[in-house]
């Protein structure tokens, strides 16, 4: 009797339990498909241009043309869209008034800041860059000197989407020439936020080539107190790059051979690796000077004149000349930064980490202290290889 009485109870309980178990997975769907986007409802955004027009944020957007698979062979064209708003977020949302598809903001690989914006106030853009989850922090950031329309419509050889092409351009030129250092959104924001270091960004300009507008790199923008105050030229940019914390690889130095003052005689030295050690020399409660010690090595790459440069006694001379050349460029960068009173090297940060109490004293007028700092640069360069020739050509004269 007992078991018969109990059985229906059990069954009821079991069903109730099963129902709950069956409903539990349904909870998973509560999150829903809220961020589901079909590919056909999207368009890939390749580049963004932040500028100010009539005192209002202006957003220029370069979109990739969606092409059907049938017409895959036809050359595609970038589509440029402009929209304005009180903030950059509003401007970005107002793009939707003109474009029927959702731009994939996360695919924007290159962001340009108009010089109008950088000379006004970086605070207008910083929050947008840092807070927005769709901004990819590994995008490369550039300063653009000129009209936004010119930039978005300019070309870059070979590349379908010129703005996106800047990404490849900045990376490959760094390895090959060693001039400009790529700056990501993340690097930029960190330098902007941290006391004792100022941000930089490579500059882009539009050049006229055969009547066509072509994008090109030109200098490194230097900032101070949320504003662009000047720029480094090629030589200074090279020197700036050599002081990058951590290993620097790639680059080419061309300068007259040691002991020769004649015109048009040059040697090219390829930099394979270089490591700069920067150390503020603090004595007691006084910052005496900044010691910069660069260890580098590289290869002899070319000489454009007759005579054998590569000999046992010459190698030491070439190395010394390279030391001098690198030192010259580093000093040029330091000099420019000091004249602009902008600590782009992050020496203030170093002092803060080494001696916080000293930094507390200096922080107030750091730009001034920085501009008057004594700097000592020692470079120790070594030639490792001479590639396919161990001697140069000997000509019959």
């Amino acid at each position, binding site marked *: 009797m007992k078991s018969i009485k109990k059985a229906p109870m059990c069954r009821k309980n079991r069903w109730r339990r099963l129902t709950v178990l069956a409903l539990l997975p349904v909870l*998973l*769907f509560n*999150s829903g*498909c809220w*961020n*589901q*986007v*079909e*590919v*056909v409802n*999207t*368009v*890939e955004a*390749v580049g963004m241009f932040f500028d100010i027009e009539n005192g209002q944020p202006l957003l220029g957007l370069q979109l*990739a043309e*969606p*092409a*059907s*698979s049938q017409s*895959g062979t036809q050359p595609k064209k970038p589509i440029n869209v402009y929209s304005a708003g009180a903030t950059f977020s509003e401007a970005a949302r107002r793009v939707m008034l003109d474009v029927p598809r959702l731009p*994939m903001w*996360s*695919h924007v*690989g290159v962001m340009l800041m108009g010089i109008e914006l950088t000379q006004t106030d970086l605070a207008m853009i910083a929050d947008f860059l840092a807070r927005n989850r*769709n901004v*990819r922090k590994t995008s490369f950031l550039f300063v653009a000197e000129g009209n936004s329309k010119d930039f978005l419509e300019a070309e870059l050889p070979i590349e379908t989407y010129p703005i*996106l092409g800047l990404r490849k351009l900045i990376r490959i030129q760094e390895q090959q020439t060693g001039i400009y250092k790529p700056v990501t959104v993340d690097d930029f924001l960190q330098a902007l936020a941290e006391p004792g270091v100022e941000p930089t960004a490579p500059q882009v300009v539009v050049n006229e080539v055969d009547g066509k507008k072509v994008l090109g790199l030109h200098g490194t923008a230097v900032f101070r107190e949320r504003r662009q105050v000047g720029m480094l030229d090629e030589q200074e940019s090279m020197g700036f790059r050599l002081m990058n914390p951590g290993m620097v690889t790639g680059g080419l130095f061309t300068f007259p051979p040691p002991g020769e003052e004649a015109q048009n005689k040059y040697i090219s030295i390829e930099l394979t690796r270089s490591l700069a050690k920067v150390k503020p020399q603090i004595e007691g409660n006084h910052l005496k000077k900044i010691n910069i010690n660069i260890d580098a090595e590289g290869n002899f790459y070319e000489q454009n004149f007759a005579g054998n440069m590569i000999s046992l006694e010459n190698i030491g001379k070439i190395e010394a000349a390279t030391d001098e050349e690198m030192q010259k460029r580093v000093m040029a960068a330091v000099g420019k930064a000091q004249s602009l009173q902008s600590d782009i090297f992050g020496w203030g940060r170093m002092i803060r980490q080494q001696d916080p109490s000293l930094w507390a004293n200096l922080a107030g007028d750091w730009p001034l202290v920085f501009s008057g700092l004594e700097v000592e640069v020692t470079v120790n360069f070594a030639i490792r290889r001479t590639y396919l020739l161990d001697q140069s050509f000997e000509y019959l004269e």
Partner: protein
Amino acid sequence: MGYKRNKLKPGSTPEVREIIAKPLSDKLEQNSADLHLLLANCSDAVFKEFTFGPDSEYSGLVLFFDGLVDKNEIEFHILKPLISELTTHCAQFDLDHQNALQQIQHNVVSMAEIKSIETLEQVCHHIASGDTVLLIDGAKQGLAAGTRAWEGRSVEKPENEVVVRGPKEAFTETLRFNTALLRRRIKSTNFKIESMVLGRITKTDVVICYIDGIAAPELVANVKKKLVAIDIDGVLDTGYLEEFLEDNHYTIFPQVEYTEKPDRACGHLLEGQVCIMADGSPIALILPTTFPRFWVSSEDYYERAIPSSLIRILRFSSMLIALLLPSLFVATITYHQEMIPPDLYLTIAATREGVPFPAFVEALLLEITFELLREAGVRLPHAIGPAISIVGALIIGDAAVKAGLVSTPMVVVVAFTGIASFIVPSYNAGIAVRIARFGFLFAGGLMGLFGIMILLLLLLIHMTSLRSFGLPYLSPLAPFNKRALTDIIVRRPWYMTFLRPTMKGMENEIHQKSTDVPQE
């Protein structure tokens, strides 16, 4: 147990059941009449009545089923000695009515396999198994002589488990051939082949093979217990038994491994597993088994260790691809576009332009089409088989893309998944992966990578809860066992394999003596 025991009585008339229970009578006429009644309408039953002995004083009856016996053997070893030799050399045999049957059994019939039987049921069982039964008047027993010889498939190459290197024999439908294939490989008296009869009507011979001293006695006892408990009218394939033997019924994962290759069965026997075969089935069941065994092929053990380890890793990865690739693709392009590199996204976006379906629906349609094609290919006769693949390739690969119904990357993904799923060596594990793939597709299509992760966790929880004869299904991965692991992701070289894999209830752990390591 998870099934309801069939309480119905066997489907024969009470009269027949009464007769079959009777012992043999000493009157040949009575026996003959009973047997004629039992074998009424069995046109293949042959009754040969004859007389023998001096003055033809004995009468006898030879009974067999035509087609199951070697008639030559009956003529030369049973009938000829009885009818002609016994009659002519009567004095030598000194036949008397009391012991006639024993004398015939030991002195007259020149056959190796002969035994005496006592009931009508035994008579019926023996003739149905291909033996020949001899009854003589005046004896309460009969003789059953082994004359089994029927037309069967000879030992051929395996059709489903093809290997490049290694033995190329496969089991056939004849149980004796199959046990012989095993016995030829394991010449030890410890190799036991225990026999039992299952199937109320089919009376199928089923054997349990194991190596005494390696297989755990509890395991063997457990298997026997489970087999004896089976009450089913017919066992036409070992597949009938698999469902009775598995511990968990509500799962997509097979808990019993099967093979058509005797060498593979022997390998498992040497690891302490038990092998079950049934007459009429060319498939041997192997148990217990674990999930990691399903990406192992017998060829791994024949090819050198390094290549076979690499191929095993490839197989394992392709199992993951077969399980996850379509769902990962769908989840990524509908939820996580930022994870795709920009150039790849441009390419994918260009191909999807104008495709009318959402990615999830597209993947589902293509997957279903692929499964249809595959199933059609399996069932179709050999002559038409290739045609379906041509039609399938044309329809899906070309026409559907050209018509803009599906996008090319999706076709590539589905095709790649298909190829990966063919790499899974075990067909039954492959089916499980195929089923789970659809679950993942839904999870990925509805909830993105989040959903795939949740389903993966649920699946793992489910798999860890499974047991195959008490052996955890994911062992040696969970519970972790370092020693057995060296035969799961990679294959340890034979010269380093001193111990058998654990966790299978080993009695005898030593594979080889450690002195056999090659020295530099």
